[in-house]
């Protein structure tokens, strides 16, 4: 599966030169990434390698500092100027560090049209969290129909009808009147998936969806994800479940130190990794 493609209409996600820093510390150092519709991508790597931040950048829970992001038809791009300018603002006189008074850079992310873009993006991209983040004050059904009703302005009947169908798909039609605290972890995560699906997303992003689950419950969540894959849903999963990554993914991405080190089909990554760093990581896992 080659990904050396031009940015065209057949790519549902494409990322170029994505940078992200927190408090001046670079977390993501120039990431290029592309996904075709219907692919299931697993992102693996050590803790702190930036894979979660990368996923959060994909639906702009963290807004990238620079680079270009195109996902589900929404274009987000920001320049490098902010950081470059800042570095030249110091005095050239040796030994004296004072900042020249330059006009404050306006935070473009607060602009109305930028916010509108983010809003559009999020209605098209679903996101799942390690801790499910179900709304505890609402029942399962209410969790699923809330967003379609208030964001897409669907009627209660439409939303409920669809919600019940989706909940049937994830095998939870019996639980629609329960509250989240009455569910097991696996059920809760499946409700979260149903809740995201109710918005009819084009892409689903998962941030370690099974790592808070008891081992015997992992399967019920991954099964849902495999089924979605069969239906042609584009999915990007940050995971530590190597079994799942190996057996379900179309492609594996290995990240280290804020960069994508290597990517390829599962059999290639797991049996014949090209990069030294990938080999080291997998060796630790196998030990």
């Amino acid at each position, binding site marked *: 599966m080659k990904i050396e493609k031009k940015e065209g209409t057949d790519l549902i996600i494409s990322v170029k030169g994505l940078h992200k820093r927190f408090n001046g510390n670079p977390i993501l150092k120039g990431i290029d990434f592309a996904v075709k519709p219907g692919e299931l991508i697993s992102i693996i790597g050590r803790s702190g390698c930036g894979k979660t931040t990368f996923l959060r950048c994909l639906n702009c829970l963290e807004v990238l500092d620079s680079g270009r992001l195109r996902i589900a038809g929404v274009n987000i791009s920001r320049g490098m100027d902010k950081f470059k300018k800042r570095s030249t603002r110091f005095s050239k006189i040796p030994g004296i560090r004072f900042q020249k008074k330059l006009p404050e850079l306006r935070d473009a992310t607060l602009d109305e049209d930028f916010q509108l873009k983010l809003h559009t993006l999020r209605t098209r991209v679903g996101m799942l969290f390690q801790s499910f983040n179900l709304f505890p004050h609402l029942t399962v059904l*209410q969790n699923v129909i809330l967003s379609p009703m208030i964001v897409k302005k669907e009627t209660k009947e439409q939303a409920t009808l669809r919600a*019940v169908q989706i909940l049937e798909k994830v095998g939870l039609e019996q639980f629609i009147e329960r509250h989240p605290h009455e569910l097991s972890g696996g059920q809760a995560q499946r409700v979260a998936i149903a809740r995201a699906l109710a918005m009819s997303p084009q892409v689903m992003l998962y941030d370690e969806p099974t790592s808070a689950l008891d081992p015997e419950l992992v399967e019920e969540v991954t099964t849902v994800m495999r089924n979605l894959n069969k239906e042609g849903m584009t999915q990007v999963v940050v995971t530590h479940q190597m079994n799942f990554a190996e057996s379900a993914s179309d492609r594996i991405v290995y990240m280290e130190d804020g960069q994508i080190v290597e990517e390829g089909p599962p059999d290639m990554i797991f049996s014949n990794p090209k990069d030294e760093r990938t080999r080291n990581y997998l060796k630790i896992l196998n030990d």
Partner: protein
Amino acid sequence: MSLKYTKKLISIIVILLFACNHLLAQNQEKGKRPVLRWAADAESGAPYAFQDPTNPLKLIGFEVDIIKAIAEELGMDQEHVQNQWDGLIPGLERNDYHVAINGLEITPDRERVVEFSLPYYITYEQLVVRTGEEKDITNLSDLNGKPVGTLKGALAERILRAAGGIIVKTYDSEKNSYTELEIGRLDAVLIDHPVALYYAGWNPQLKLAGQPIGEVTYGIAMKKSDTLLLNKINGAIKKLKESGKLREILEHWNMWNFMMANYMKDPSSSNIPRKGFEDFIKQQKKELTFKDYFDRYVGFLPILGQASLVTVGLSIISMIVAILLGLFIALTRVYAPAPFSTLAVAYIEIVRGTPLLIQLFFIYYALPMLGIKITPFLAAIIGLGCNYAAYEAENYRAGIFSVPKGQMEAAISLGMRKIQALRYVILPQAIRVVIPPITNDFISLLKDSSLVSVIAMVELTKAYGQLSSTYYDYIGTGILVAILYLLIGLPFVKLAKLAERKYSPELKSQMQNGKSRTYFTGVSFKRLKAFLK
């Protein structure tokens, strides 16, 4: 769901507003004659202006008789306006009433602020000691180094301080000082003679001692520039003096003294009955049976009931103001950009950090100087509401922060706007955290509402003060009022518990176990199933 509750809530507010307005307005419908509005604190006690012990709804006293006689002379109707004694003079500034008559001594300080009529009564300060000590203590010099009580801010206090060497203890209520004397915390009390006569004269434990001290002149106070009114009142007082009506009133209350005889150049003796005084003494000396007490407290109920209504109405409306305003301030503080959030913080710190009493005074007495005149009820609601809003804002903030960050992220990831996420996801969860502290604050507000008596409102605590000073019965009335506060508060505690259950599914599902559940859509599960088929 919210619509139904909002409707209910609105109708409750409307009813309360009407009830309160009715209470405040009921005295205003009178005949066609012009009305002389006069202020006195019914808590000031006998013989000035106090509730008739046999009928607590009626105000009596020698000042009541005098102002009635004056109004009659002027061909006017009269109407009493209740105000705290300290607030009598500021209230003139607000044009709440025309005159104030309530044992206001004519002093140079007061004359600078208000106009005084001719004196309507002249008296002196009277020493009172414990029975058996009247021979040892006959004047101020006998009290050197001893504790002596008096009324705060009265002429007697100045006399005591000027004497030097006396330990001066001041009280808000003269009756308290006599109680202190009886139980031995004071060695003497120096107060205006009528008070001594009415509250110590009949008490076998206490004795009036020594010679008259100083001279006290009472005048009717009115606004500085009102010369027309001044002339009318002075004319009426002169007529009352000449016709003997003034003497008749004073004799009725046993208040005629040598100073008045001098002032009116009338040394004759008289045999006018002293019925007002005798009735009062009879009432005080009466050995009360259980039935008498019962009848007395039943007699209190109309007054206390009315006062409770004011307390309840005031507290509920103020709390609604506080809850709504507090929410707005909390959201501004947490989510608004810099200048607005800073303003919200400033509001909270200033309002929380300054005394409610001063805020109430400011709203009631200072705003009218800027041309904004508001009724006591409105002032009380604004004062209490805005004050408690600061506390509620902090409660909400705590509630908002108690909701995990992931909830907002999940809501936003689902395409909700921040405001929608707040409305549907964050606030409903914050509410259940916030209900207990808000209930707490409501109970606290219920009691803080007693502070509004300083701005001419008669609520439960003020009614307590009035009744207890009339009957000299602090304990029984106190217990009655305390029970009323408790009874008022309890239903709201219960309500809060229900609300807490409503907003926390863990408790709710325990409660509803076995019962048919409904969605917030209002559709039961069975009906939904049927609908889907």
